[in-house]
C-alpha cells in the first residue's frame, strides 16, 4: 500500500520542499534586478515656490526631448524634504536609487564614500571656467578625495532675519556684537507675546547650525581642518555655551518652547511675529515674499553679530548628485549639464524669490540681487561662509553628527537638565570622537 511507504523518501521530499520554500525569498531577492523601463529617473525635492518647481520639471522634460528620450521614459517624482532620508536609504540598499537628485551638504560625501556617485568633476570644472567663476566656498561639500562628486547648485547663507520696525521703535541699530544683541533683545521684547531671539534649540538640524554659528564667534569649533581632531571641549565652545545658557535662563530672550522646535519652529516664530531675530537661510524671506509682504518690508537680513573672535557666517550647500547604479549615466550627466547652463539655471534661481544664492558669481550682478538692500551682505556671506562642520569639511562623520542631533542633545543637557556646560561638552566631545573614529575605520 502506498501509505506504508511514507518513509524516508517522502520525508526527504517534504524536507526539501520546505527548505526551498523557506529560502526562496532569500534566493529571489539576491538574484538580479529587473530591467529598467525608464531612462531618466529624477527625484525632485520641492523648492520654495511652485513656479520654481514647475520650471525645474519643464527643464527635465526639455532635456529629455533634446536627448531623444520619450516622455514615457522619464520618471519625475516629488520627494518631500523630510522623507529623503528613509527613501534614499531603502532605494540604495535595494540597488535602485534615482539617477539624479538634489543632495544636502554631507550627503554628497557620504554617498561618494560609499562609491555610489558618478564623478562629475568635468561638469564642475566647466562651471568654474564661466566668467567670474563660482563661489569656491561651495566646493568644500562636493569634493571627495580631490574629485568633485556633486554639482553645487546653490550657496545658502544663514543671515539673521531681523525686525527693522521693532528696532526703529526702540531707536536702536542692529547689534554689532552678541553683548549688544542681548541688551537690544531685552529692550525690544515683550514676552510671552514676543521673544527677541527665536534660536532653534530642539532636536533638529537647525539647532546644530544655530548653536555652532554662535560658538564660532567665541572661538569654538567642532573639529580641526584635518577632519580628525575633535575639539568640542575647547574653551571657546565653553564660553559660547555659557552665553546661550545665559540667554535662555538669565536674560530669557529665547522662547522656552524652542526646546521642542523642529526645523520649522524658528520660521514659524518669525512668521507669526513672535520673534524679532532668527538665524536661518532665507527660506523665511522667500516665504514672506509669497505670503506676507507686510512683514517682508520690515525684515532685514544681517550678518551674525560678532563675538570676542569676530564674526563667522554659516553657509550650506545644495548639490545635485548623480547615482552610479544607472544604465544611462550619460543621460544623467547631460541633465546636470543642462540644468547648470547659466541661462536655464538663472531662471530657476530667480523664481525662488531669494531662497537660493546663485553659485555663479556673475549672476549676482543682476538687478534682482543688486536692487534690494536686504541682499547687501549676501555676497560677502556667500564668499566667506563656512559649513556647519567647520573647521572640517562636511564629511560623512559630520553628517552623522548633524543627523543624530549630537549638538542639540548637548545644549539640552545644559538647558533642560541643568548640567554644567563643561560636563555636557565633555560628553558631547566623547560622542563626536566616537563617530569620527568609527567612520574613519569604515
Amino acid at each position, binding site marked *: 500500500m502506498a501509505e506504508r511507504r511514507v518513509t524516508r523518501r517522502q520525508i526527504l521530499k517534504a524536507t526539501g520542499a520546505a527548505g526551498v520554500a523557506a529560502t526562496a525569498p532569500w534566493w529571489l531577492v539576491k538574484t538580479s534586478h529587473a530591467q529598467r523601463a525608464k531612462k531618466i529617473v529624477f527625484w525632485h525635492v520641492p523648492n520654495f515656490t511652485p513656479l520654481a518647481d514647475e520650471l525645474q520639471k519643464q527643464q527635465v522634460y526639455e532635456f529629455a526631448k533634446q536627448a531623444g528620450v520619450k516622455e514615457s521614459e522619464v520618471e519625475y517624482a516629488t520627494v518631500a524634504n523630510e522623507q529623503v*532620508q528613509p527613501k534614499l536609504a531603502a532605494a540604495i540598499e535595494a540597488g535602485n536609487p534615482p539617477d539624479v537628485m538634489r543632495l544636502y551638504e554631507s550627503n554628497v560625501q557620504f554617498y561618494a564614500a560609499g562609491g555610489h556617485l558618478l564623478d562629475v568633476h568635468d561638469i564642475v570644472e566647466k562651471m568654474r571656467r564661466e566668467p567670474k567663476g563660482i563661489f569656491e566656498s561651495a566646493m568644500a561639500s562636493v569634493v571627495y578625495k580631490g574629485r568633485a562628486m556633486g554639482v553645487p547648485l546653490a550657496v545658502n547663507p544663514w543671515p539673521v532675519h531681523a525686525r527693522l520696525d521693532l528696532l526703529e521703535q526702540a531707536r536702536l541699530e542692529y547689534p554689532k556684537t552678541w553683548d549688544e544683541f542681548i541688551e537690544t533683545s531685552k529692550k525690544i521684547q515683550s514676552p510671552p507675546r514676543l521673544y527677541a531671539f527665536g534660536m532653534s534649540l530642539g532636536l533638529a538640524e537647525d539647532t546644530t547650525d544655530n548653536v555652532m554659528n554662535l560658538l564660532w564667534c567665541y572661538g569654538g569649533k567642532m573639529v580641526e581642518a584635518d577632519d580628525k581632531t575633535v575639539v568640542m571641549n575647547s574653551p571657546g565652545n565653553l564660553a559660547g555655551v555659557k552665553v546661550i545658557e545665559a540667554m535662555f535662563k538669565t536674560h530669557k530672550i529665547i522662547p522656552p518652547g524652542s526646546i*521642542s522646535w523642529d526645523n520649522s519652529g524658528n520660521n514659524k516664530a518669525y512668521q507669526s511675529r513672535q520673534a524679532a531675530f532668527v538665524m536661518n537661510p532665507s527660506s523665511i524671506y522667500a516665504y514672506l515674499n509669497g505670503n506676507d509682504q507686510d512683514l517682508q518690508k520690515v525684515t532685514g537680513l544681517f550678518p551674525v553679530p560678532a563675538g570676542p573672535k569676530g564674526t563667522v557666517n554659516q553657509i550650506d550647500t545644495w548639490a545635485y548628485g548623480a547615482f552610479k547604479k544607472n544604465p544611462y549615466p550619460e543621460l544623467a550627466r547631460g541633465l546636470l549639464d543642462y540644468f547648470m547652463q547659466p541661462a536655464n539655471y538663472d531662471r530657476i534661481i530667480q523664481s525662488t524669490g531669494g531662497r537660493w544664492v546663485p553659485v555663479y558669481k556673475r549672476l549676482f550682478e543682476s538687478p534682482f540681487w543688486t536692487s534690494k538692500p536686504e541682499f547687501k551682505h549676501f555676497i560677502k556671506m556667500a564668499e566667506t561662509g563656512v559649513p556647519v562642520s567647520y573647521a572640517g569639511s562636511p564629511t560623512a562623520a559630520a553628517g552623522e553628527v548633524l543627523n543624530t542631533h549630537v549638538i542639540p542633545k548637548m545644549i539640552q543637557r545644559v538647558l533642560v537638565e541643568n548640567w554644567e556646560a563643561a560636563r555636557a561638552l565633555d560628553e558631547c566631545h566623547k560622542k563626536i570622537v566616537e563617530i569620527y573614529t568609527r567612520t574613519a575605520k*569604515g
Partner: protein
Amino acid sequence: MGLPAESTEAYHHGVLVRAPTLSRRPRGSLRLRREARLAYALLTPTLLVVLFLVAYPFFSAMYLSLQNKMVGSPGRFVGLENYVELLRDEVFLRTAWNSVVYTLVAVAIKFVLGLTMALILDQSRRFNNLFRTLLFLPWAVPVVIVSLNWRWIFDDLSGFLNNFLITFHLTHDIISWLSDPRLAMGCVIAVVVWAGTPFYAMTFLAGLQAIPKELYEAAEIDGASIVQQFVFVTAPRLRTIFVTTVMLSTIWTATNLQFVLILTRGGPASRTQIFPHLAYEIALGARRLGMGAAVSLVFFPLLVVLIILLTRRMLRERED
C-alpha cells in the same frame, strides 16, 4: 508606521484554546492526508504572505543586527558586538525605562478610560447611539494626522492650548508643553490615549452588552450592591476581553513610531526617547542599519515575554 494606534487591534482568544474538529469518528490516514493537502492549499496565500513579507524581512533584520553595516556599504559580520555596545550605552537604560513607562502608563490609562466610557455608554440614555459614534471617532483618524494635529494643539506660540489658557486668563505665561521635561512624556501619552481609548471602549462595550440582564436582576435579589455586581457579575465575564484587548494594545503602543517621531523626536533631553524611535534615529539618522536593527530587536524578547505572561496568568485566573 502610519497605523491608527488601535484600529489594527481586535481581539480574540481563540488561538489559545484547542480547536474543535468535525466529527469524532476515526478516519483513515488517506482521508487525513487529503484534508491536510486541502488545508495547505487554503493556507498557501497566508503562508506566502507571511514568508515573503514578514518572515524574510524579519530574519534579514536579525542577520543585519549582527553586522556592522552602513547604508550603501557592504556589511561586516561582527557577532553580538552591536548588542554589547548598546547595553553598555547609557542611552539604552534610559530608553528602556522610558519605553516601559510609556507603554504601561498609556495602556493603563486607556484601560481605565475605555472601561469608563463603555460603562457610561451601557447606561440607558437618549441619543446614546450618537454619543457612541462621537466618542469612537478618533479611532478612524490616521495616526499621522492625529500626531500632526496634536502637535499643533501643543504648539507653544500658536497652539490651541496656550491660546485658550491665555485668552481666558488661566495662565499668563507660555506653557511649553512639549519642551518641559516634566510635561513632555505626559503630553505624548495623552495623544496615545486620545487615539487609542475608543478601541478599548468599543470592545468593552461589546462585552457589556452581551451580559444577560437576568444575571444582574438575580444578583440584585441576592442583595448585591452595585460594586459587588461589577466585581462578581461584570468583571469575570469581561476578563477574556480584557486580556486580548490589553495584549494587542500593548504590542501596538510599544512598537508605534509615529507619535514620538512627529511630536517630540525623543526630546527634550531624551525624556521621550523610546525604542522604535531610537531605532529609527540610528538606522536612518546615523545610517547605521546594523545597529538600528539591533535596537529594534532588543525590545522584542521583552514584548514576547510580557505577552506570554499576560495571557497565561489572566487565562489561568479565569479557569479558577
